[in-house]
């Protein structure tokens, strides 16, 4: 085969970039975890992990929280997906909106609202005079994580339910099965790969979650926070690194399971053909119960968002509930720079992440070259990593020559680019697979070089996927916290870190204002996206990302 210069050049460059900006930080973290405070080789950090009960405990706590959150989220997500895909319940647009809103919300928003309502001086707590109950710890964590993460489960399961050929359920009914038995014997078993996939996805995300436990963990120590505390609070960098590596293991394992095992078992064929509307499998009483559940959950979630909104306008939540706009003034004064910094960094990082991801997807799906499989896996790897690992890795890797980046905006931009690139890769891959290869082959046949084919033929055809991927990357950049908290500096701050600071200082109303600003920016980004590519394209794409 004729050597394609473009392919060789780009694959080599990309590989080099990945080695430096993905491999090197991870390597640095490992190296540090295997040394003691004077820099010599030592297994003491890992020894501590095994010996010290409180560290073991935080590991098990993380696993426990992750499993419980995943299980509950999958249940809630399944009910939502089922109601949307298989019943005649009214008000689906509202349900769909509420089921995806948490994905684009700022990381502390829900925790904040829960504290505002159910904390010791919370509105609801005071209202009902509830004593002896603390929202901190497992209950609060479960509540907030479930609400934050069930959308992941919902979207995954929805995709699977919509992919099940509707006539299969018809056939079951036709052969004499009742609706309930059809659900149990056909719908449910066919959904199992999707359910497993969703469970693993939520599990990994819960493990990596840093924002929620920072606010709500109370005495329930989790690994993500411990790693941070050891690294920054205690100054025990090797131990922090080791903890981060420990967190890596379940995350990467679950990711591998999900991607390479569960997905293979899918019964869904991606044909792109429009599906006939599926049969309503529910009887009226069942429908009423399910409706009550999903609407109840949605309204509760909505109430949390509204609480946050209310928090913006109170003088000092918990102490002084008078209406006031002073928090806006305060945030403008204190946070203006951080808001602009965050916007600037996110706006710079997004196109690079998108284009790189797109290029990689194109190379992997359409071309053959040496090291292709390796590139594919390597580029997707950051997806599996918890933000903490990336943050620590970047600090360690780039605070020394030859590549000295700490304290600059560039380090944050790079972290964002390589962390979020997988989103663009997934989105572009899914879109590319559905496009007939012969269109591009026709262009090549007529004389276009590879890079012209890429720019002039492929790119325009997958526009919706690109823009949706970009929107999600932008959101991830704006709402990142677990990676960012290690690499912000005197010169470049991030809104989420600022929100955390405000919350720690118990300036809840100010934190609420920051959350509000963040969510408005994110909604604006999606509004722009909708204008560019239209409503229906988004619905399809959201399932892929």
């Amino acid at each position: 085969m004729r050597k394609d210069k473009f392919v060789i050049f780009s694959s080599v460059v990309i590989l080099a970039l990945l080695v430096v900006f993905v491999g090197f930080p991870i390597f640095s973290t490992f190296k540090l975890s295997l040394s003691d405070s004077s820099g010599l080789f030592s297994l003491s950090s890992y020894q501590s992990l095994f010996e010290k009960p409180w560290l073991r405990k935080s590991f098990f706590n993380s696993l426990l929280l992750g499993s419980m959150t995943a299980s509950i989220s999958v249940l809630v997500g399944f009910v939502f997906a089922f109601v949307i895909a298989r019943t005649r319940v009214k008000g689906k647009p509202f349900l769909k909106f509420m089921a995806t809103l948490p994905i684009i919300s700022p990381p502390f928003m829900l925790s904040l609202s829960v504290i505002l309502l159910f904390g010791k001086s919370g509105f609801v707590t005071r209202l009902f005079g509830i004593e002896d109950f603390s929202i901190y710890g497992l209950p609060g964590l479960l509540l907030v994580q479930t609400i934050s993460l069930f959308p992941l489960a919902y979207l995954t399961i929805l995709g699977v339910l919509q992919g099940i050929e509707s006539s299969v359920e018809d056939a079951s009914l036709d052969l004499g099965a009742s609706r309930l038995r059809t659900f149990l014997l056909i719908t449910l078993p066919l959904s199992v790969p999707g359910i497993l996939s969703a469970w693993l996805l939520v599990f990994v995300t819960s493990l990596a979650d840093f924002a929620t436990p920072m606010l709500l963990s109370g005495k329930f120590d989790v690994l993500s926070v411990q790693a941070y505390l050891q690294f920054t609070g205690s100054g025990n960098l090797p131990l922090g690194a080791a903890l981060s590596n420990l967190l890596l293991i379940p995350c990467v394992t679950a990711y591998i399971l999900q991607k390479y095992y569960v997905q293979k078992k899918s019964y869904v064929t991606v044909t792109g053909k429009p599906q006939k509307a599926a049969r309503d499998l529910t009887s009226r009483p069942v429908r009423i119960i399910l409706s009550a559940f999903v609407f109840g959950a949605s309204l509760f979630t909505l109430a949390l968002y509204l609480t946050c909104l209310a928090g913006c306008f109170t003088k000092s939540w918990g102490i002084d509930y008078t209406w006031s706009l002073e928090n806006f003034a305060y945030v403008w004064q204190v946070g203006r720079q951080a808001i602009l910094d965050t916007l600037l960094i996110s706006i710079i990082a997004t196109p690079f992440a998108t284009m790189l991801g797109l290029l990689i997807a194109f190379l992997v799906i359409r071309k053959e070259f040496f090291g292709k499989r390796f590139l594919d896996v390597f580029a997707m790897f950051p997806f599996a990593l918890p933000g903490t690992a990336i943050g620590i890795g970047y600090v360690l890797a780039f605070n020394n020559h030859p590549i000295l980046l700490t304290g600059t905006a560039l380090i944050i931009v790079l972290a964002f680019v390589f962390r979020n690139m997988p989103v663009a890769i997934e989105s572009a891959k899914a879109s590319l697979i559905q496009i007939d290869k012969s269109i591009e082959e026709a262009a090549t046949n007529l004389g276009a070089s590879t890079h012209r084919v890429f720019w002039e033929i492929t790119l325009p055809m997958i526009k919706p996927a690109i823009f949706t991927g970009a929107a999600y990357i932008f959101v991830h950049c704006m709402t990142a916290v677990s990676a960012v908290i290690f690499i912000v500096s005197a010169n470049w701050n991030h809104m989420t870190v600022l929100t955390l600071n405000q919350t720690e200082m118990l300036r809840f109303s100010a934190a609420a204002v920051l959350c509000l600003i963040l969510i408005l920016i994110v909604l604006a980004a999606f509004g722009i996206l909708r204008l560019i590519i239209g409503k229906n394209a988004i619905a399809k794409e959201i399932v892929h990302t």
Partner: protein
Amino acid sequence: MAMNRIWVAFAFFCGLFALSGCSKTASSNSIAIYTSLDESMARLLLESFTKETGIKVDFVRLATGEAAARIEAEKNRPQAALWLGGVGLGHAELKAKGLTTPYTSEATQKIPAALKDSEGYWNGLYRGILVFVTNTKQAEARKLTVPTSWNDLLSPQWKGLIQIPNPGTSGTSYNLITTLIESMGEEKAFEYLKNLHKNISQYTKSGAAPTKNVALGESALAIGYFHDIVRLSQESKAPLQVSFPKEGTGYEIAAVSLIKNGPKPELAGKLIDWMYSKTASQLLADYYYVPVFTEGVDLRKEAVLPTTLKLIDTNIDWAGQNKERLIDLWNSKINT
């Protein structure tokens, strides 16, 4: 053609990208600092400094531990010029790691020896005294008496109602441990902490949080710094009462250090000097602190300590050397 527009956009973004690698405070008359002072205090002070000297200050507020970690991470390319505030112990640790530079000037010469590093690596700003703060409303409702002794805290009436910071991350809390060790010896101190654990509802990440929680009614009792509590009590309408342990209590010295190889040390030096000026001292006093130099400064009457109060000194160097061991011990014995 669409291609050209894409190239232009691409170039633009590349430019931005490259720009992000540059430093922000390139302009000549500004510095960037890390501060562990209370945010609004820092804001007030630094704005006043800017007004007087025309030097702009960009600051990031970080807890003591975080600031130290950040400074260490950036050691090969420090982003901040100095570290303002934060527990003296933290500054001593940085000195030991070779991350700070000594600074002496006419102003610092006058600082009493007890309130600064002998070699000039850090200079003290004020003392923070550890005290108890109780939410009187909660106390009344639960029929609790305001504590006047360390032992009072061990009483079962306080079960689940006390908050203190996590000593692993908060200088305030570590200060508490060293004070107790100084007062009753290590073994007894840990026994005390173990018994105290039963009454603790939460070990907060930041040092100031327990106090604020008590103000909010989230907690009934906390241990915190006198000046913070007094100010909070005066400014908000929270029902707070301060009390002192009769056995005596410990204190911290908040300090300022010049970061080694930090940008614009001359401007940073100006800031350090200014911290001891009349203006700065008055600002600190207004905020219920007791600054190093009190001459000609109007102190808040509520901020004045009772003369009967016994202060327990801690050897900062000893505290620094034993920190890891003690925190470890605390984690294994108490935080399980």
